[in-house]
Every structure is written in structure tokens, then in C-alpha cells.
């Protein structure tokens, strides 16, 4: 095929793509227009049915709770896979003949006190916000996932302030493993308990409270959000802690 023929073929293909694209574009609904039946249907009943004013959480942990279980286990599997791939096998040693430091003469800059102070200042507030988000999914647009990642960020700030050893001591791997398993398993278990009560899987069987939007309202939605929160925080800490360990081991072994 000569370059010229190839160009022609490309032109034909592009013309077809543009035509189809414009055709599809002309048939799009207006900006912000939502023709589906589910949004209005859910908005009409969500507060009376669940007492949760955090409608997004109600959808995530109640109306499509089964999907969320699956998503939960994606992260769980990622963290577990990471631990399995990067684990140290019995009898396995870091290769002693591994190359020396990549740039032995580089200056490793000390953490500046500005970074130390700022990150340490933010540890407390970040942890509080993360915890608050994970435990208030029923009252406002937050949720376990958001709370969990922000909670994990608080620990990363400890690392950023130059305290890897404190970071590791605050988040020992055995504890993270346990918390992650409790979070992921707890979510699934909340659903299974409903089955044991001859209700549909993930049916909201806990008392819904009387005041919509109260922290104590919404039954299983609040419980699941909290479990997701600790699971996500533990999973992120595991993944990043594992990577940090790998990088630091390499540095240490080669310096």
C-alpha cells in the first residue's frame, strides 16, 4: 500500500467517523436533561423510606447496595494482590549483588521544617474530617469511600513530615490486614444477616430512627458506610505502605 492509498483510506475512515459523531451528537438530550425514570422515583421516596438525607449514600448503600459490595471487593482484591505479589517468600532474600545506589552521590535533601510543620498541623484536622465523613454518610453528601481515603491521607501526612518509622508504627500491617478484612467482610455480613432473617440480601433491617438526617438514622446505610470507610482507609494504607517499604528497602539495601 502506497502512502497515498493509506491517506485515502484514512480520509474515508475519518469522514465516516465525523458523520457518525455528528449524527449521534444531534440526537443527544439537552444539557442537564435527564429523561430516565429512576432519579425522580428515588428522590420522591428516599427520605421517607430510609430517613437518610444523604441521598447519594442511600443510593450507594441501599438501592444499589449489591453493586457497591462488588466495588468494595475490587479495592480489597487490589490490596490483597499487592501484598501477595510483594511479599517476601521463605528463603527469599533481597539480592545482595543488586546494583549500588542509582545515584550514590546525590544529596538527599532533609525534609524542610516548613513541610514538617505544615503536614503535622494537618494530620489532626484531616483525620477528623475523614472520620466525620465516614460516619455521616446518612446526613450529607459524603460516604465511606471518601472518608476512608481522607483518613488514609492523614497517615500519609505523617510520612510526608519525614516520619516513616512513626507512620509504620501508627499503621502496623497486621492491624491494617485485620481492619481491611473486618470492613470488607462486615459489609458482606450485614447483607447476609438480612438473608438469615429471611429478608432480601442487604435489606435495611436496622431501626431507621425517627428524625430524617439525624446521625442515628438510616439503619444499615450508616453501618455500611462506616465499614466501607475503615476498609478503604486500611486498603490505601496497605497499598502505599507496601510501596514505601519496597522503595525504602531498596535504598537501604543499596546505600
Amino acid at each position, binding site marked *: 500500500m502506497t502512502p497515498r492509498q493509506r491517506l485515502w483510506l484514512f480520509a474515508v475512515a475519518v469522514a465516516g467517523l465525523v458523520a457518525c459523531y455528528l449524527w449521534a451528537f444531534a440526537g443527544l438530550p439537552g444539557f442537564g436533561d435527564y429523561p430516565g425514570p429512576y432519579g425522580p422515583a428515588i428522590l420522591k421516596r428516599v427520605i421517607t423510606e430510609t430517613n437518610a438525607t444523604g441521598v*447519594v*449514600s442511600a443510593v450507594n448503600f441501599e438501592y444499589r447496595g449489591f453493586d457497591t459490595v462488588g466495588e468494595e471487593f475490587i479495592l480489597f482484591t487490589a490490596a490483597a494482590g499487592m501484598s501477595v505479589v510483594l511479599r517476601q517468600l521463605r528463603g527469599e532474600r533481597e539480592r545482595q549483588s543488586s*546494583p549500588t545506589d*542509582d*545515584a550514590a552521590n546525590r544529596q538527599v535533601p532533609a525534609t524542610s521544617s516548613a513541610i514538617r510543620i505544615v503536614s503535622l498541623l494537618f494530620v489532626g484536622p484531616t483525620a477528623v474530617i475523614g472520620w466525620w*465523613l465516614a460516619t455521616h454518610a446518612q446526613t450529607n*453528601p*459524603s*460516604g465511606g*469511600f*471518601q472518608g476512608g*481515603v*481522607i483518613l*488514609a*491521607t492523614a497517615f*500519609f501526612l505523617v510520612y510526608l513530615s519525614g516520619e516513616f518509622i512513626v507512620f509504620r508504627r501508627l499503621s502496623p500491617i497486621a492491624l491494617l490486614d485485620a481492619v481491611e478484612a473486618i470492613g470488607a467482610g462486615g459489609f458482606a455480613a450485614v447483607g447476609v444477616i438480612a438473608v438469615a432473617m429471611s429478608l432480601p440480601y442487604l435489606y435495611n433491617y436496622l431501626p431507621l430512627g425517627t428524625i430524617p438526617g439525624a446521625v442515628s438514622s438510616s439503619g444499615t446505610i450508616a453501618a455500611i458506610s462506616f465499614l466501607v470507610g475503615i476498609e478503604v482507609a486500611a486498603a*490505601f494504607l496497605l*497499598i*502505599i505502605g507496601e*510501596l*514505601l517499604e*519496597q*522503595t525504602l528497602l*531498596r535504598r537501604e539495601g543499596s546505600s
Partner: protein
Amino acid sequence: MTPNAVMDILQVTVLVLVAAGATLVVRTRDRVRLVLVLSVYGMLLAILFFVFQAPDVTLSELAVGAIALPLILLLTIAKVRKPQ
């Protein structure tokens, strides 16, 4: 200006910024710089979600896209970096 007009301008501005940011991410060749650009891009996406009234997604994107993902990438680059 009506609140709706302000909202429209904000939304269009953010969309343009996100498009520009995505282009910049694709055009950046240096890996370490790429991670920093990606982090800024995550921040832009978070603003996009906020302007389009999805505060819950904003929080996720902020923590994952602007912090966790760049951190994971940086650590990986530090680990696999070739001897110079």
C-alpha cells in the same frame, strides 16, 4: 448576571481547563513531571465535579486523583528508576 449565567460560565471555564489539563498530561514526557501534572489535573477534575454539583465525587477525586494516585506513581518511579 443571573445565578444560572454565572453557573454556565463557571461550567464552561472548568470544562475548557480540564480539556487543556488532559492535553498537557498527554504531552508531558518526563515521568516525574508527568506525575505532578497529573496531580494538578486531578485537582481540576475535582473542581469540575464540584461545579457540576457532585460534592461526594469531588471528595473522592481529590483524595484519589490528586493525592493517592500521584503518590503511588512517584513511589513506583523511585523503585524502578534506572541507574544513571
